[in-house]
């Protein structure tokens, strides 16, 4: 039902490509990230962490550090006798007047440990003779999900594929590490914190420090990545606040790269042993999967399985396996890249048993089409745009060492949001301030907040002053689950419409009409249908008087939606002499309801695709199987794509304004790795059922294929 808040039918700004409001500030360095915040008299904090994956703390000696030059505060984070459960578990901390002195002092904190048995991988934790490392058991078996008669399903199958599929652990690798600057004024705390949840961080600081939330002020204006790992102060934030209190001076505590890898979250591993059946004409009949995975020390590892496709009979069990590694955190579409990979590689293998085209096979087995389930259309559109008809059957017949192939994959995500509040001021000089306690975590939120207000007032984006990223602003949720746009945009729209109505009420008498006859467009307020009868925005605002228009509003139903679908195509080449995979082309088709800013929406898709190329080809958290210590806690041996590894990426966004705003931050990262792995399979004929596609694994698979496989 259209109402006064409904999105405009013919928007001037929404859906167009608008450059980020803060782009110039970012590229010129004027934008201050948490890392850039410096306060008068500020100290530097440094944490001491367990080098062992599992140990009891026998003693902590802070005395040498306390006497070290420049040191202003030292604290133990755990009690003697406590257990540390992973390498990187925080133990103590110092604050000193320079970073180097803080480092030197941290080295002087003497902690004695008694090593305890640990698990560096799931095999060790699942072994029948494994020692009891985790209270309540080393694994946790989840409930069995079952639909339909599995035996009958397999009986109908003409072909059955049975294999084990797996994805690995990767870390978030935010380019700006986690951390904050904490400053006390009596019992009031101000924290500049790199977070995806500015208001919730204030709440968590208050809870952990035992002070009223009203005494905490958190600020996050610019952030260098979070991807699901930055929803609160964490141990480092609380320690920073405590050090600042002890030292009676502001403290900056930003983690280093190693700490980042060890203790700020990761994407859990996923392994599944799967049996699946299809009929001779390509209908799925049955799915039986036992899965397990690890989210580290005592954390879960769930993911959806099977993904997307319609298996009429299915059974699935899942087991969380605990190992002595830092706990997982939400990472961009938590669970979906894993479930997608495990299912999509299987799908290509199933299609090959009956020599059916992978796209046709997938389309045949989709759930019914719906606005949030547009795959069939996207498969068709994408196949055409990508040149899928030029795809050869499995195994590139071209002579020479470079083999090329194509692959495809589908995904879904939620993206609904609610609950944001906003405030709009219109001043008599025409100025507009829009306030909302949401945050821009690099996604472009600042810009789209401004766009929705500008659209509503019929003004250019430059007319709007946007205030976000501060806990003193009207409530909004954390930026996770792709909820920000769907939560904040309706609030901005509602509040802006109400503010405009208030302005119309002031302007209408001067124009000799009723407020409901007025419209705001092109920088003017005028009587609908007769643009000449009106005032410029500036002149109209002069009628406001001394007291500005000041309106609060909140999210309302009908302006946002839920559920997105997407399909991605990948082309990759494999050098069969070195096993090196290069992604040459990606096509990403994605919807996100009403597109607010086409440019930043596309940016999310680019970023998601590139992140997934990292997942597919480069990233891998490696723990030494004996010591349990991470062997690549850096960015030299934990690799990410460089610019020359980034292929041509085409984004096709499907604008669906009738569905309202839906988030897009996560879904574009789900399919890419699966599509790449399927392209590698199509190129070489070798099936690699686990990520990452590192050259040695690819080469070994090729040798195996040559030795025994068929091409």
């Amino acid at each position, binding site marked *: 039902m259209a109402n006064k808040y409904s999105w405009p039918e013919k928007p001037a700004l929404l859906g167009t490509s608008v450059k980020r409001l803060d782009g110039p500030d970012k590229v010129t360095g004027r934008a201050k990230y948490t890392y850039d915040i410096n306060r008068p008299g500020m100290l530097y904090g440094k944490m001491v962490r367990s080098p062992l994956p599992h140990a009891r703390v026998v003693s902590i000696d802070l005395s040498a550090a306390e006497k070290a030059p420049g040191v202003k505060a030292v604290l133990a984070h755990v009690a003697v006798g406590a257990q540390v459960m992973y390498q990187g578990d925080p133990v103590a901390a110092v604050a000193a007047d320079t970073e*180097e*002195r803080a*480092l*030197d002092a*941290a*080295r002087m904190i003497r902690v004695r440990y008694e090593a305890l048995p640990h698990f560096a991988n799931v095999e060790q934790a699942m072994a029948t003779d494994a020692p009891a490392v985790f209270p309540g058991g080393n694994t946790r078996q989840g409930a069995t999900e079952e639909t339909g008669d599995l035996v009958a399903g397999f009986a109908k199958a003409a072909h059955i594929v049975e294999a084990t599929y797996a994805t690995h652990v990767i870390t978030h690798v935010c380019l700006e590490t986690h951390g904050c600057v904490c400053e006390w004024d009596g019992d009031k705390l101000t924290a500049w914190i790199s977070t995806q949840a500015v208001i919730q961080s204030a709440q968590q600081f208050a809870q952990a420090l035992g002070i009223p939330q009203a005494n905490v002020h958190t600020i996050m204006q610019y952030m260098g990545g979070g991807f699901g790992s930055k929803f609160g102060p964490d141990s480092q934030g609380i320690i920073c606040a405590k050090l600042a209190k002890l030292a009676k001076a502001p403290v900056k505590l930003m983690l*280093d790269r*190693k700490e980042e890898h060890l203790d700020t979250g990761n994407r859990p591993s996923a392994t599944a042993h799967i049996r699946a059946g299809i009929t001779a004409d390509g209908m799925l009949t049955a799915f039986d999967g036992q899965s397990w995975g690890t989210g580290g020390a005592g954390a879960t590892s769930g993911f959806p399985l099977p993904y997307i496709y319609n298996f009429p009979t299915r059974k699935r069990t899942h087991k969380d396996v605990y190992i002595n590694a830092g706990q997982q955190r939400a990472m961009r579409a938590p669970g979906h890249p894993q479930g997608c990979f495990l299912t999509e590689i299987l799908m290509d293998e199933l299609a090959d048993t009956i020599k059916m085209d992978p796209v046709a096979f997938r389309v045949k087995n989709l759930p019914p089409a719906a606005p949030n389930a547009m795959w069939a259309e996207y498969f068709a559109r994408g196949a055409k745009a990508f040149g899928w008809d030029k795809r050869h059957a499995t195994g590139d017949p071209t002579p020479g*060492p470079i083999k090329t192939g194509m692959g495809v994959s589908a995904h879904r995500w939620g993206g609904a949001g609610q609950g944001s509040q906003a405030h709009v001021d219109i001043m008599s000089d025409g100025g507009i301030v829009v306030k909302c306690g949401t945050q821009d975590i690099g996604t472009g939120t600042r810009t789209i907040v401004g766009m929705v207000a500008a659209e509503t007032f019929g003004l250019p984006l430059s007319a709007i002053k946007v205030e976000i990223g501060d806990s003193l602003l009207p409530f909004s949720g954390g930026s996770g689950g792709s909820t920000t746009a769907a939560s904040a945009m309706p609030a901005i729209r509602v509040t802006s419409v109400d503010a405009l109505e208030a302005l119309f009420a002031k302007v209408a008498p001067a124009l000799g009409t009723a407020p409901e006859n007025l419209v705001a467009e092109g920088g003017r307020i005028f009587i609908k249908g007769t643009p000449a009868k009106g005032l410029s925005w500036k002149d109209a605002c002069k009628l406001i008087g001394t007291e500005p228009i000041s309106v609060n509003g909140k999210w309302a139903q009908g302006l946002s939606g839920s559920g997105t679908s997407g399909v991605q195509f990948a082309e990759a080449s494999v050098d069969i*002499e*070195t*096993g*090196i995979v*290069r992604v040459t082309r990606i096509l990403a088709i994605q919807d996100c309801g009403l597109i607010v800013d086409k440019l930043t929406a596309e940016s999310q898709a680019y970023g998601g695709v590139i992140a997934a190329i990292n997942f597919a*080809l*480069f990233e891998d958290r*490696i723990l030494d199987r004996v010591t349990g210590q991470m*062997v*690549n806690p*850096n960015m*030299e*041996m934990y*690799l990410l*794509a*460089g*610019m*020359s*590894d980034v292929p041509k990426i085409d984004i096709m966004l499907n604008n669906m304004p009738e569905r309202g705003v839906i988030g897009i931050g996560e879904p574009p990262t789900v399919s890419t790795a699966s599509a790449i792995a399927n392209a590698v399979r199509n190129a070489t004929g070798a099936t690699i059922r686990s990520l990452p596609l*590192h*050259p*040695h694994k690819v*080469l*070994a698979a090729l*040798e195996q294929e040559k030795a025994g496989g068929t091409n």
Partner: protein
Amino acid sequence: MIGSLSHRTLLQPRSLTDALKMLRDEGPLVPLAGCTDLYVSLNFGTLKGTRFLNLWGLAGLKDISVRGDVLSIGALATHTDLIRSPLVQKRIPMLAAAAREVGGVQIQNRGTLGGNVANASPAGDTLPVLAAADAVVVLRSAAETRRVPFTTFYTGYRQSVRRLDELIVGFEIPAIHGRQWFRKVGTRAAQAISKVVIAGVAPAGRAGSVRVALGSVAPTVVRATRTEAALAGGATIGDAQRTLLEEIAPIDDIRSTSEYRRRVAANLLARFWADAHRK
């Protein structure tokens, strides 16, 4: 944890003579050129030295010139200098190719040929090229100048004949006849340390001899002389590959596996030989 910066000192010589005197009289000192390797050690907490000798200002060690038939390259020539030098491009294009694959642009601007060699990593990208080129390392102390064939420069993993009072001042490269070939295998397109790196020279017509050298497949760079002899003697590529696998001894490490390095070394030998014989 990152190494401490306190208690470290830097000596600043004004000339090469000055630097050599400091090495003799105030040692032990760690020479410091572009610092791209030294900073990595500092960050890993493995940088041992506490006193450093800054060579970066010694402009005389940047020269690239030809004397007679020999190309001389100063130790402080950066990878960018090598890429841009017309002399290097003309006489030893495989060195320019190797330099182009080192790190990224920033590293190429700072990292030096002398540093790459002195750092003595078996993965150093220019090392197989210098081995295949029959290069000579020019070492100098306050007392003397020594010329050491590159193939005898390394004595073991990260060890060389360089004495603590010596600096590498440059490299001398005799004329190379034949077709030069270089290939680096790293996981990503740039900023990747080699899993396998190989340089080769194939005779063109009657000029030149077969040369094959590899990095990242043994504790030091390997000049595969038996493989060269096999190829020169007309062995099948399969036989040459088998010989090569006897000459290398790669290990499993974080960047790759021994098995992978052996396969790739053999595959690339075949690729080198096939490319060399393509018209």
